[in-house]
């Protein structure tokens, strides 16, 4: 409750501050420049392809990609050759795998951090598994779990599990001893020390892990689908490629990057809500770790 009021008051203060100085010229947002640059690049692409008559299989014109996107989404959501169906499959794999991997990574991080000796024993194993390129395991997982949803969810979970585990462990270790001492001076139980201090202090680290994991999640789903699947955007890319429909492939790339952007936007929104108490600069620094 009180947290909410603080956030909204902070927002009001900013608005008032802006209203108090209406005469000041607002600097042009860099977003505008980004947009102008995007339009210019797309225009150059379209013009260049047309002008130099680049073959369609090498680089399709933007208009081809737009048309492919339109046609792909103008189908029934259940049509096996439409974008809706495949996007839904890949999204489901990504989200389910992400939730499973992050959840499991966080749970294991919490458990391990409770006992220092356990962390010391397990650390070499974690480091060894972390340095293994997880996509190399994808074929085996498909062999074990089949061509359905399960194998892709497992691959995504495997990829997202480690960043969250590692950052959570780092976060629980980063707790200031004086905060623990404060709790100890109040005869606090281990449970209270965890819920009142350790968990909160680790949160910025955990969010850095969640954001890293978000980027890995889509990669995992696509790699899994490349290795072996019946549906999904990865499968669609392979199909379009073999049909030499390069415009279609590029359209799928657009969908994939939108998916990635959406996922990390959700994480960031969640982070801004939960880490309202952190100075913006500081949280940014943690993310870049």
């Amino acid at each position, binding site marked *: 409750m*009180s947290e909410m*009021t*603080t956030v909204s008051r902070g927002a009001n203060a900013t608005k008032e501050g802006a209203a108090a100085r209406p005469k000041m010229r607002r600097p042009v947002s860099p977003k505008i420049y980004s947009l102008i640059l995007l339009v210019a690049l797309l225009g150059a692409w379209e013009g260049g392809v047309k002008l130099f008559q680049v073959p369609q299989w090498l680089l399709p014109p933007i208009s081809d990609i737009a048309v492919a996107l339109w046609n792909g989404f103008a189908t029934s959501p259940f049509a096996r050759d439409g974008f809706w169906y495949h996007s839904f499959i890949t999204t489901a794999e990504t989200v389910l795998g992400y939730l499973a991997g992050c959840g499991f990574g966080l749970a294991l991080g919490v458990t391990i951090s409770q006992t220092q000796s356990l962390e010391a024993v397990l650390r070499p194993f974690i480091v060894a598994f972390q340095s293994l390129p997880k996509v190399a395991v994808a074929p085996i997982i498909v062999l074990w779990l089949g061509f359905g949803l399960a194998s892709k969810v497992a691959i995504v979970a495997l990829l997202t599990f480690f960043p969250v585990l590692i950052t959570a462990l780092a976060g629980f270790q980063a707790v200031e001893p004086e905060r623990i*001492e*404060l709790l100890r001076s*109040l005869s606090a139980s281990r449970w209270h020390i965890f819920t009142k201090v350790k968990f909160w202090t680790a949160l910025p680290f955990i969010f850095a892990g969640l954001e890293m994991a978000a980027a890995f999640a889509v990669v995992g789903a696509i790699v899994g689908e490349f290795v072996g699947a019946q549906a999904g955007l990865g499968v669609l890319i392979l199909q379009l490629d073999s049909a030499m429909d390069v415009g279609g492939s590029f359209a799928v790339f657009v969908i994939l990057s939108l998916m990635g952007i959406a996922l990390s936007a959700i994480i960031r929104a969640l982070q801004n809500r939960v880490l309202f*108490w*952190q*100075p913006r600069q500081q949280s940014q620094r943690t993310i870049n770790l």
Partner: protein
Amino acid sequence: MTDAGQQGALSREFIRISRLRKIFGPGTASELIALKDITCSIREGNFVSIVGPSGCGKSTLLRILAGLLDYSEGSVTMDDQPVRGTRRDVGVVFQNSILLPWRTVLDNVMLPAEVLGLDIKAARHRARELLAMVRLEGFENRLPGELSGGMQQRASIARALLHDPRILLMDEPFGALDAMTREQMNMELQRIWAESRKTIVLITHSIPEAVFLGDVVFVMTARPGTLERVIPVDLPRPRNMTTMSAAAFGAKTQEIRALFNHAGAFD
């Protein structure tokens, strides 16, 4: 408890420390005698300042009183009960305010109630009263990051008083503040002590601060940490800025400074 009982308690020796010794890393190459044969007592309701150079073990002594640290030899009792581990009737104010940045000021002050399982509604009422006492009315819903250093330390004093401890242990609470704020905080602390009637043990390395606030000043010297002398301060209360310029005040600080010079602390 009857009035007569309370009167009796006030004049009674609350804390007794006898031949207290603390050795860090005993039997190792880095063995360090932090405290050597400390014997003293603290009366209920008294304001005790402990002053000494860095490394004299004054923080170690405070942490032993708080139950945060075990001792090696001797005895420490509160109400004739040996101190082993932390107690619910002790409040600690640390050098840094250690406010949790994700909690509002009010929620920070409420922390002891949550941890000790007190009645939350009653505690919230008390927290607001304490915040008023430390002059933080209207800042209840701010985050600690929005407060100045002095305000943060005042909030941490309110937090230490929430569960109505009998004794307040303060470990160089104003060490990080600038000189002006520090003088103000000394006045505030005197007022808080007068209003709350707690026993207060204040660790400081400022001789004027120790004399200004204390009913009695424990002077400690370093290597090994020993209690050099117990000096009663009989300056009239309430003390204020004119007290500091009084001749008696100067004489007391000079007396303590001479003890350090004699012990070679300023060599």
